[in-house]
């Protein structure tokens, strides 16, 4: 169901199941369980949604519907390096959409996705409070400002090394 294979540990599954049994029977158990599941796995893989659906006796279609309704839930894993491009007003006016395009082109994935080797994931964010540096890209907490699309390759290459 996802192009990146699911790799969960026994500990993670144990944590998920204990979270489910803690909430089972409650009205509105689905949301807290999904939040906790995303904390455990970093995202909501199909396999995890299936377990939630089975154990809470809720159709998978409903779990998936909730997962895709709220932008806080992610269906794809986060990469080792999280690339975040600001699409807030100032950055956008300064052409951050072109920066995002360059990143997508360079990593061959779309915003919201993760590379098959799980090295990089891309997400967009809104204003990070560095409008003076617009357009801004953040990788693993480090801020890169006043970017041009041509700068992207060199910056990503640094992270490719490790």
């Amino acid at each position, binding site marked *: *169901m996802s192009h990146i294979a699911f790799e969960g540990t026994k500990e993670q599954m144990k944590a998920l199941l204990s979270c489910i049994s803690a909430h089972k029977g409650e009205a509105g158990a689905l949301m807290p369980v999904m939040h906790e599941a995303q904390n455990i796995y970093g995202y909501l893989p199909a396999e995890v949604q299936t377990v939630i659906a089975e154990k809470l006796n*809720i*159709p*998978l279609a409903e779990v998936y*519907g909730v997962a895709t*309704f709220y932008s806080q839930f992610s269906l794809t894993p986060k990469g080792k390096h999280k690339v975040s491009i600001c699409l807030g007003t100032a950055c956008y006016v300064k052409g951050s959409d072109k920066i995002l395009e360059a990143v997508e082109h360079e990593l061959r994935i779309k915003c919201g996705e993760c590379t098959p080797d799980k090295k990089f994931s891309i997400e967009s964010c809104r204003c990070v409070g560095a409008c003076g540096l617009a357009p801004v890209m953040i990788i693993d907490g480090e801020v890169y400002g006043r970017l041009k699309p041509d700068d992207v390759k060199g910056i990503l290459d640094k992270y490719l090394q490790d």
Partner: protein
Amino acid sequence: MVNLKINGIAVSVPEGSTILQAAKLANVRIPTLCYLKDVQCVGSCRLCLVEATGARGLVAACVYPVSEGMEVRTNTPRVRRSRKTTIELILSTHKKKCLSCVRSMNCELQKLALEYNAEEDRFGTDHDLKPIDDLSASVVRDNSKCIMCTRCVAACEHQTIGAIGPKNRGYSKVIGSPYDVSLAFTPCVNCGQCVVACPVGALYEKSAVAEVWGAIVDPSKKVVFYTAPSVRATLGEAFGLPVGTNVEGRMVTAIKQLGDVECFNMDITADLTIMEEATELLSRLENGNPTPMFTSCCPGWVKFLEHYYPQYIPNLSTCKSPQEMFSAVLKTYYCRKNGINPDDLFVVSVIPCTAKKFEVSREELGGYTDAALTTRELAKMIKEAGIDFANLSESEYDLPFGDASGAGAIFGATGGVMEAALRTAAVKLGGDGAPLEFKEVRGTEGVKEAEYTLGGTTVKIAVASGLGNARKVLDAIKSGEKDYAFVEIMACPGGCVNGGGQPYVHDEVRNNVDLKTLRAQALYDYDGERNIRRSHETPAVEMLYNEFFGSPNSAKAHKLLHTKYSKREKY
């Protein structure tokens, strides 16, 4: 009681009633779109907006509760303008291929657009077409026509399946199965309740019409039709006849006018099912094999059990459904007797059901059925052939599969299979003076229970229709709370008369008329008029045992009339 006025008409309604319910009592019509009686009431489509004193803006009549002294206006310029705009906004993202649409002339959106003079292009047209999912054997989804009313989702949840739901958000929102999985690879049981719930042409059955026309004009093929019990009680609706009109005679005439075809009566294999199933039940009780025994006529229910309660597969009767029994009889006995090569015989079943289309594709059943047409598809073919259905003269089914028992006919309503079985069992166990009618199992109630003493044997039985009710019965058996000998289950609420392949009925009718009861009544009336009312007395059934099968549950019967089941994963 709460007193209020609707368009100046005073009405008095119980506390907690909605404006829509009160309006019905005042004989004031309020249009609805997302509302569907017994299935969904969420107030999301905004078509039923009205003005009400005490409310800030316009309110949704289907969910807004009445209050003492309230004055409601359903027909002001503001209300009309709002409804018109809402329809035009819905139309802006709707694939407006109305002329060729399966729902043309029968579409709730088309009807409302016409009533409110809506312009189809006031807000432009979204030309992004969404993919069509036609991989399921039963149901096709064209999301470019979907108007997001979520009636299909509610119908699926009502059946406790939940194979579909809203996905994504805002403009990218669509209705469908999780991820991009086709409906074909979900726990969908093919009941088709989503299709009859859809107000537009976003959901329809996988059509076999072209294939059947092809066979009719193919000189190398001999085409035989047979019609399921409930089709006689519903086909007339597609031609404007009142709900509950029995059109058997006209239906047979119409089918024979489609081309050089023969038309048989599926009630005969309903009778045959009783012979096989009753014998199986008695042998289960004698040999200590798993009971309760569950009926297996309904392919929606069978797939439900395979997905959700596989531990009860041993309890499911091994009998094929009447459709598959009939096709097997035709491709073997009938072909042999008439010197026909089975490959040249094209067998068409006419059924009220979309799940029967899936059943045709189940390999373990032998592939004896060539095409399964829903009641709607047959109506479409009759219209396409230019036949004036309402004014047809009546004909009889062709021999040797014409006359059947009334017991076979009531298979089309919830409780009918059980009553048919009891009629025969009462005679076999009790001899002369055995009761004929078992009215406790009739009616549209979700779960019915009864206990009968037949010739000294006491049997506890249960009947359920609608899969939510099936779950209740199964869970009660599982927990040990209930113990039955025999249980009848039909997937659709009310049974086949309310099947997913039955004619589309406008909301106005569906929300105000008890379809299930009226259609079932046509079958019970028909049963009451028959000379033969017990399955084992049907001459064609006796003929089949004498000439071909020997006796019920014989080796040959097991080979052709029985099947096996297997556990299914949900995804």
